[in-house]
């Protein structure tokens, strides 16, 4: 039985094995798209940012050792940097893709629906790990961007209970490798 390779092993292997990077991409494309879809209104723009994120990761993977942080944190640090860069410059940079000679991705209406479906899957697949109470609290706090007091008021409980639910939910997500709280 072949053991599933860790994220770090996939990145290291991608130097000689191109499909290893494809496998790494398969694991996280949904979550990266979900990360950008929460921030931009346009699915095509979210794909554009995701593409530049993975291209940047590919271009800089030699600098990843896995000693300082897990691969998923490294990837989302790149995603966050691309987002900050895009907002500051007013456009999504294409430097990494240009350097790698990547072709643009053609996007039509059908493709836009695919992007949204994959982004939704990426966000939801993690939430299945949580209890109903934790999931509601995390969604209200981190997806709907609502305050603790407001959530507590609506759910008829105290603010400290909501904070605990969110905290435990995030801890579960972190242990699953999502590093959710680091994205905000």
């Amino acid at each position, binding site marked *: 039985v072949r053991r599933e390779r860790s994220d770090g092993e996939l990145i290291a292997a991608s130097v000689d094995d191109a499909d290893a990077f494809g496998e790494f991409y398969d694991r996280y494309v949904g979550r990266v798209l979900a990360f950008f879809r929460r921030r931009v209104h346009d699915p095509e723009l979210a794909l554009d940012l995701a593409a530049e994120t993975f291209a940047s990761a590919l271009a800089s993977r030699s600098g990843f050792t896995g000693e300082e942080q897990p691969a998923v944190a490294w990837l989302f640090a790149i995603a966050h940097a691309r987002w900050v860069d895009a907002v500051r410059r007013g456009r999504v940079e*294409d430097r990494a893709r240009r350097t*790698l000679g990547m072709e643009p991705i053609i996007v039509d209406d059908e493709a836009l629906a*695919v992007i949204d479906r994959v982004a939704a899957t990426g966000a939801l697949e993690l939430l299945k790990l949580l209890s109903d109470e934790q999931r509601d609290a995390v969604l209200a706090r981190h997806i709907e961007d609502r305050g603790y007091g407001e959530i507590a008021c609506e759910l008829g409980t105290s603010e400290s209970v909501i904070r605990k639910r969110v905290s435990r939910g995030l801890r579960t997500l972190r242990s699953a490798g999502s590093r959710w709280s680091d994205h905000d």
Partner: protein
Amino acid sequence: MTDPIHDLRRELVAATRREATRSAQASAASRRRLPGRFGRRVVVLVAVLVLACGGVVAATQLFGPPVRPGPVVLGGPRSGSVVLVPLRVADPSGGYPWGIRIYTPRRGRSAPGAQLTCVQFGRVLDDRLGVLGEDGAFANDGLFHELPVEPTADCVRAASFTSYPGYVPASAFIGHGACTPTPTRTGVTPRAGRRSTHYSRTCTTAELRLVVFGIAPSGTRFVRLSTSVRAFTQKPGPADRGAFLFVLSDSGENPRPPQLRVTFQP
């Protein structure tokens, strides 16, 4: 079937292969004798040409031209009074959040303590208030268009107030080219200067947001919006100057016009 996720994977894997080949060639070349001064110049020149010509991916813009300013009313904003408060409200479909801008106009003070306050709402990107090029607005360019202070502000002479714009396009743009809610959906009459001839078509349900905003009275801890279906609560932050904003999707559950009630809890 069009699958951009698969297409991106294919491009990334192909790029990884090219990188591996390039790396192997570079490694082999390093074992050979290094080129002379002229040779190195040729290598650098070729690398620059590859970078300049090889890339075919165009950078995607986020910002489009700003919304054209309208006529200045009430003398425009008083210097230093324009504030985009920190309040951010997520859109039901994701993307740029919604926000509130407040300012004090130069004119409009008829008596001490009766100062006008003007409030605008819109989408927010990079601490800028704006609208989106979608739902027919700005030829659906998908870009963010910064909103000038005029002419879309609601100005009210009161310490607190609630405004019910009703259903508005998700783009936050009400004007030329944008889709328009049907009159039964808005529950309000169009504002002056916004005749129906400016609109391109009727908005679909997915393109509409139910917006309620205002300034809560001093000492308010929670603002509660009750619809005929459910209730929503918001807690204005210390720097929000009492501003509140609710943005709901058009689920089709609310009657037309919407029945809304805003209450303030100290």
